[in-house]
């Protein structure tokens, strides 16, 4: 394409461009030295850059990218969409950080004075601050009471306001528009997974969610719903209902990290045969956080799967494990091809072989040692090493079943001989969530796999890949070693010991009381009684 134009006149195009650039560059730092600058340069500039433009040396390893302070766009505010944040808004983010990003909270590391000085210093990066009136916080009112009716109303308004377009039907960030979302810097940005409220950047309470609905998250695709209320399309109360509904999509409490996954012993029923068997609703769930594989090259700084919900049961013969995780797409999904290309372009090229070409599936690996360790020693958590291999169940979304394999280091898995394959898999994908069940006899004939034992903690680790997020090979989400504990039948001592304790204590009590009363009747008691004692 060519657009032709002959330049005439005193001013050339280049000159005008140069003038424009000068104009754009002029709104910089106003030279405020002091505590704010020293604190910023020391602790913040590595990511946000000395000039506050979000281009610190670490920026390329992070997605979302560090905030560009020159734009004065702040996601978490108590002010209306497009308005500047209050000082308290900026201070809050410095204090508590932004959980889905690389921004930590600084409350414990920097003094009150340093954090206050930072607020002032950050504002100097943008010429928007100091013009006109101080930004005013909105009075958000008080949360309505939650009830089933309120949640139903909230769900209805979630549909009316089409929140699902980005966040998906059940809030897992899997909406049809999620594939093209961009932030203010034109970087791809994920629609929040509303089932993980403990990771919301502005906090996970109903009040926090309501504020985000009213103010929007500036610099992201999340708009403000204030106009919708002002136009009378929905009432403020209905907006509160949406906040309550969104809150209800996440668990009551943020999950703790359970080191041990309890495999419950099922004695009078059959083990479930499918991933969505209702029997799974009856057993406890453990949360296993996953993080990017940044240990061996090529590393991966943008893992999509950030946690797994793991359950297990056994019947003395077989072990069944169910793993659920949020993933917005059933990879490979052509709708996400462009997203994948952009993520790879941004996050992959720095080292190692390029990512796998062509469509890439979602994958999940459950890893055990090859035998239950007797001492403390066990294989290297990152898929073992030459000396000490690991045993794995490997599942991928583009093939049925799962494969048992042995690995001696990341990327070296070799399947066990087909005669020794004993693990079965059942997987379903719905509304941005994978549910995968893996099942295997507790002991097998094979010498290459692990024979499970009951009554002791067996190391287990997990790996996950979202193919549509450009993940394959070593570009993965990983966990460290956790444990799975196959319950044993409750030993008889569990019931006998308390009974015995009851009998002994009770008998002793009776004995003491009996003796005391006998002595009382025999008049041996010598002390004077205090008459008014009740």
């Amino acid at each position, binding site marked *: *394409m060519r657009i032709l134009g002959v330049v005439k006149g005193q001013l050339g*195009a280049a000159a005008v461009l140069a003038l424009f650039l000068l104009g754009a560059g002029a709104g910089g730092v106003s030279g405020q030295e002091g505590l704010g600058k020293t604190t910023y340069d020391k602790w913040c500039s590595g990511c946000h850059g000395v000039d506050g433009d979000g281009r610190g040396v670490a920026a390329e390893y992070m997605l979302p990218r560090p905030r560009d302070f020159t*734009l004065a766009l702040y996601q978490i505010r108590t002010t209306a969409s497009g308005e500047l944040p209050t000082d308290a808004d900026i201070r809050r983010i410095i204090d508590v950080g932004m959980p889905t990003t690389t921004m930590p909270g600084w409350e414990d590391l920097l003094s009150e004075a340093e954090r206050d000085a930072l607020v002032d210093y950050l504002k100097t990066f943008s010429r928007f601050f100091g013009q006109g009136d101080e930004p005013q916080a909105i009075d958000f009112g008080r949360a309505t009471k939650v009830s089933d009716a309120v949640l139903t109303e909230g769900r209805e308004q979630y549909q009316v306001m089409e929140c699902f377009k980005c966040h998906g039907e059940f809030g897992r960030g899997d909406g049809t528009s999620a594939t093209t979302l*961009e932030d203010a810097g*034109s970087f791809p940005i994920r629609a929040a997974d509303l089932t993980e409220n403990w990771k919301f950047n502005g906090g996970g309470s109903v009040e926090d969610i309501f504020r985000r609905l009213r103010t*929007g998250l500036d610099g*992201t695709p999340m708009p403000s719903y204030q106009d919708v209320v002002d136009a009378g399309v929905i009432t403020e109360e209905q907006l509160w209902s949406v906040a309550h509904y969104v809150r209800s999509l996440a668990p009551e409490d943020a999950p703790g990290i359970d080191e041990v996954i309890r495999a419950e012993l099922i004695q009078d029923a059959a083990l479930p045969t499918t991933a969505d068997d209702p029997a799974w609703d009856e057993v406890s769930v453990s949360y296993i956080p996953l993080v990017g594989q940044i240990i061996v090259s090529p590393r991966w700084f943008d893992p999509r799967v950030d946690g797994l919900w793991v359950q297990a049961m056994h019947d003395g013969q077989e072990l069944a494990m169910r793993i659920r995780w949020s993933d917005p797409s059933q990879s490979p999904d052509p709708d996400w091809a462009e997203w994948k290309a952009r993520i790879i372009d941004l996050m992959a090229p720095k080292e190692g072989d390029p990512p796998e070409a062509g469509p890439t599936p979602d994958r999940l690996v459950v890893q055990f040692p090859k035998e239950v360790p007797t001492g403390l020693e066990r294989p290297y958590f990152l898929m073992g090493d030459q000396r000490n291999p690991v045993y794995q169940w490997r599942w991928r979304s583009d093939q049925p079943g799962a494969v048992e394999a042995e690995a001696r280091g990341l990327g070296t898995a070799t399947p066990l001989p087909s005669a020794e394959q004993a693990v079965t898999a059942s997987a379903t994908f719905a509304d941005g969530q994978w549910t995968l069940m893996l099942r295997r006899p507790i002991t097998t004939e094979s010498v290459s796999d692990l024979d499970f034992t009951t009554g002791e903690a067996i190391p287990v680790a997990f790996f996950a890949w979202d193919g549509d997020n450009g993940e394959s090979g070593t570009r993965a989400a990983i966990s460290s070693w956790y444990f799975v504990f196959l319950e044993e039948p409750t030993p008889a001592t569990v019931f006998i010991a308390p009974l015995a304790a009851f009998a002994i204590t009770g008998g002793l009590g009776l004995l003491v009381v009996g003796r005391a009363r006998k002595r009382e009747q025999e008049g041996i008691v010598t002390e004077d009684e205090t008459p008014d004692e009740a």
Partner: protein
Amino acid sequence: MFDGIDLKKVLAATVAVFIATGCGGGGDGGGDSGGGAAAVENPVDAATAGNISGSIAFEGDAPAMQTIDMEEEPVCADKHASTPMTEDVVVNDNGTLANVFVYVKEGLESLQFPTPSQPVMLDQNGCMYRPHVLGVMAGQDITIKNSDGLLHNINASPTENRGFNMSQPVAMEGTRSFRVAEVMVPLRCDVHGWMTAYIGVLDHPFHAVSGGDDVARLACQRTDQPADGTLVFRPALGLHDRVEPCSGEHSPGKTL
């Protein structure tokens, strides 16, 4: 570019042409307007106002525009008789370029113009912004309308002004304005990634957008300034401006 410039009056102004088609906009607008200390109130006098008109000729092969997949939005898809296309570069059948923002860039600094009380309408219809490019004066209301009755968000990301990100989940209207001059302010609907629009914000009323036929018309104010202003032609994709002196030497039909 401008051919057939019709200069009825001598213009003491710089005219800029901005092809605001699909480009990222860019933060190099004339941001420091309104700073004139002794600006003179100078409403346009229709009796002495001149007109400038021209068309923007596109040379070379017109790039093929992408088709937009509106499968997810049947309401919008049904509004289009043929497959909707992106509007990054729209070349008319006669070889002229549509959606070019033409404005007086320099020479009016000493004058002040009243902000029109009439709002400008930006419609979202068939999951497209109508118009794709529009000009307003700083402070002038822009009525943003949702004629589709499905969720749009209007995410404005200016650099000289404060932006906004408004949700419109049903057929409704909202009003916004920009405080200072900025060419161009990009608008985006994040729900429908293909929806973009550009707003040229000026502190005077002399701007126009080339249309579906070929003509961009400017009504210009006669001034007592020296007669050799500069015509700025700001072509494709926001890369840079073309500058052209705007004086009495121009004769109709001149190709720039």
